[in-house]
């Protein structure tokens, strides 16, 4: 539901993966974004109108994505798809971060675009002060992504783990991910993804900045 930038990109990308796609938008001009090669169904109408959803063959759908520009339309159509048509696999894009949390708690999987984009940008500008990539539901463990600190370049992952108390989960190096072993050596430009305890965050940050023991 919603044939804007996200909706049309999503539709084409699902089609490339050989899924049947039906896309709904209130404005028929929006379907131009799909390009000539799109062979799925286009349905003009309101995304939470049951007749419109039926015209899009929702009864046979394996998944429903609500990605229009309206938070309210998205949550309403997502719930209609799930509760009236029994679609278990439903996702709603929600701009307002606070509402996204509420809906998530009510059982509608949400993609909170604003929070995500803002955090991505903060992480690029202020790698240290960023919100964690992830937090476990109890709030005790967090995952952070850092650019390899200069002082650690040339040292092993094991020495980093021993010194900081954090665990390195994976490293993104030259655009691809790898699972490091203890003797893997940190290289310049590595994006290091590590897990740490929330209450040790300051100590870990300090240890990362200090570098390996022998240098301090």
């Amino acid at each position, binding site marked *: 539901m919603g044939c804007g930038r996200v909706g049309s990109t999503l539709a084409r990308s699902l089609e490339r993966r050989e899924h049947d796609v039906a896309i709904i938008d209130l404005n028929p001009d929006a379907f131009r974004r799909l390009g000539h090669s799109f062979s799925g169904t286009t349905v003009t109408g309101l995304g939470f*109108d049951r007749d419109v959803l039926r015209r899009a063959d929702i009864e046979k759908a394996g998944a429903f994505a609500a990605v229009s520009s309206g938070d309210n339309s998205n*949550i309403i159509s997502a719930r209609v798809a799930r509760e009236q048509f029994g679609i278990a696999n439903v996702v709603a894009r929600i701009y307002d971060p606070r*509402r996204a949390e509420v809906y998530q708690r009510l059982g509608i999987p949400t993609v909170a675009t604003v929070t995500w984009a803002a955090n991505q940008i903060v992480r690029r500008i202020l790698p240290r002060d960023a919100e964690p990539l992830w937090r476990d539901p109890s709030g005790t463990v967090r995952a952070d992504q850092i650019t390899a600190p200069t002082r650690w370049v040339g040292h092993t992952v094991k020495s980093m783990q021993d010194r900081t108390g954090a665990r390195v989960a994976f490293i993104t190096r030259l655009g691809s991910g790898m699972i490091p072993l203890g003797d893997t050596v940190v290289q310049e430009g590595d994006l290091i993804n590590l897990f740490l305890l929330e209450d040790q965050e300051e100590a870990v940050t300090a240890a990362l900045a200090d570098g390996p023991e022998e240098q301090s």
Partner: protein
Amino acid sequence: MRVAIAGAGAVGRSVAQELLDNGHQILLIDKDPKAIKSEMVPDAEWLLADACEMSSLEEAELGRCHVVIAATGDDKANLVVSLLAKTEYAVPRTVARVNHPSNEWMFNEAWGVDVLVSTPRLMSALVEEAVTVGDLVRLFTFRQSNANLVELTLPDDSPYVGQRVAEVPWPVDVALVAILRDGGINTPDSDRSLEAGDELLFVAAEVQEDEIAALLSPIAHPHR
């Protein structure tokens, strides 16, 4: 009582004024600066904010409200306001306005709506009530109890014309609450006798509505 009203259009403002006159505290919320006409309802609190956003609802201290009325012209917003009021702020009573009859089916407990008000539905019910004899007309729905306020004008051919209220075998879960006759209200005492043209008002369980019609107007409503 503290009442928050989302949507400060003509509907929201009129409801606000009526409730203020009855001694309630009113907060009017609208996201459109042009709708903030505080001089029109000066005794209400006014808040320029989107009532669908959590931060606005926090500012409005929705948790202190006894009633939230979702009265905007947008059914989507009315559903979301009701849902957030109910699930996030445990507001005891939510009242939501239905703008488009085709959306009415969503206005229920799944969206945190306790009472819905549908202007088109109300108008058609009032028209039917005025012109229909022998058919049951639904005037109001008590959302939390599956009961309706219904009306039936007793037709000339009803077998109960001239009978006393006590002699009518009323179906279960049906309460005759008033008999309107010649512009007056008659209490439904057991000795009162029914006359053709009486407007009978019932509070009835929804499943019993057909029974009422079949009982009082059997020629138009033969038992199935």
